């Protein structure tokens, strides 16, 4: 079976700054790839190039189909979705409507009504699954930071996308909240999907990812199974500040 996502020689420049430098990656179906690295190493830039918000050089293939010439909505329609480092929601729509919007936005127009009718129960069930059932009619601003993160995850889940791009889904949460998010992701979001997961919490990456890539200054510093990558001295120095002894 071919790769779900393939990146060939992807380069992104902002003027004289190279954010991504000839990056090559291949994600087999079902892979959860962790992306670690210091701030400014190119993690979020990679997601932004994959979704079409930034245009880089090189090739991006989703299920063997070249997508780097497509705009963001076209890429999404082919089966990818993302979450944002700072959660984005429709502030004047309820939690349920936010979820509904994600589910229905790109369904065929004339089917919307019938689909909507039969799936409202399903949307409620999804909210229950993510622990947001009691907040269905609340506005996003009334949610706590962890609830907003859960809403982002629920939204990514209901799109049915094959490829998830998760940009620091536990940022700004406490240890206990991050643990809860980790459980929710492991149980509901990640099974059966291919994903790229950016996270600074190393335990998070270790628990959820089958592969890990460490970026530094837009280049790949290390790639492999999480435990192997974390064992490398240059990775420990970059991520944990441990000095490398000659």
């Amino acid at each position: 079976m071919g790769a779900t996502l393939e990146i060939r020689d992807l380069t992104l420049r902002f003027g004289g700054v190279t954010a991504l430098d000839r990056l090559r990656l291949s994600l087999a179906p079902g892979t959860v790839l962790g992306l670690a690295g210091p701030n400014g190493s190119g993690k979020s830039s990679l997601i932004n190039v994959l979704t079409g918000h930034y245009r880089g050089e090189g090739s991006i293939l989703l299920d063997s189909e070249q997508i780097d010439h497509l705009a963001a909505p076209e890429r999404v329609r082919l089966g990818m979705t993302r979450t944002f480092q700072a959660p984005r929601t429709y502030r004047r729509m309820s939690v349920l409507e936010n979820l509904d919007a994600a589910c229905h936005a790109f369904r065929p127009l004339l089917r919307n009504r019938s689909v909507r009718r039969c799936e409202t129960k399903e949307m409620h069930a999804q909210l229950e699954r993510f622990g947001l059932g009691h907040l269905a009619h609340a506005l996003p601003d009334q949610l706590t930071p962890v609830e907003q993160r859960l809403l982002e995850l629920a939204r990514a889940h209901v799109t049915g996308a094959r490829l998830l791009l998760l940009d620091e889904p536990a940022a700004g949460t406490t240890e206990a909240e991050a643990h809860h998010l980790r459980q929710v992701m492991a149980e509901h979001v990640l099974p059966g999907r291919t994903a790229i997961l950016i996270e600074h919490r190393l335990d998070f990456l270790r628990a959820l990812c089958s592969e890990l890539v460490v970026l530094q200054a837009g280049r790949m510093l290390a790639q492999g199974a999480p435990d192997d990558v974390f064992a490398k001295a240059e990775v420990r120095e970059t991520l944990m500040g441990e000095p490398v002894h000659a």
Partner: protein
Amino acid sequence: MDPFLISVLSNIGLFSFLALSAWLLLIGGEISFGQQAYFAFGAYGGGIATAVWGWPFPLALLWGAGLGAGVGALVAWPAARLSGVHYAIATLAFAELTRASLNVFRYQRDVDGYLTGPDGANGFGDIRWVYETGIAPGTYLALIAGLLFAVITAIALASRFNLLAQLRMVGEDPILAGMQGLRVLRWKVGAAAAAGAIAGLGGGLYAHLATYVEPAQFSVMTGVHAVAYGLIGGLGTALGPILGVLIDIGLLESLRALAAYRMIVFGGLVALILILRPRGILDESLVAKVRAWARR
């Protein structure tokens, strides 16, 4: 019915088209101070169609709406890449360009021995189809109300098919909407075309009731009022901008005791409502509460 009341109600109906046009763009996240331009396209286009070309009235109205839609889409194609104040300025500039162009636009033809058609700053008179066919003011008011109802029904249908919700998504967060598969630029251009069509339809109706139009009637203040109607009445429902028109024309302009102070009271009202209810009287949360109450 009292002729004054018919005249007031007709004006409320006509400006409701303009208000709905600006409202549609507001829920799509854009402020347009230029909807009066499409009203003018409808007025001049529809007027020329009946008075100069001798077209049937329904076809002239459709032509005016089509002109509004087409020009609306053409302007939105580049303008939709802008947002916020830049979009507002672009629409304002286009409307002023339209008004200035109408000041020098002459298209007069011999109709039954009289030169008929737009004559630059002197305006465009003799749009007499309504009077020549003997349509009573009350009947014309019913026609305005019927077409306004048709537009509101079309908006309600769009809401049923999730279209309005998707436009609101684009308006609230275009980046998120794009990430959920919505082609933001197309939505913005589509909304501008629909808004142009609504304004153009209103303009065509207005020209045939007034029988005379001139460029000065389509000034910046008309566009500012169009936006203010939605902001006062509320952005939660299509009835919001109509409520705004009712407050301005129905209350302030038509009550003779208040007429002299209209602009002062109206300006104060806009400021007050923007502070107390930034999304207008019938805002999204009030509409959601009413819907929840109705479901019980």
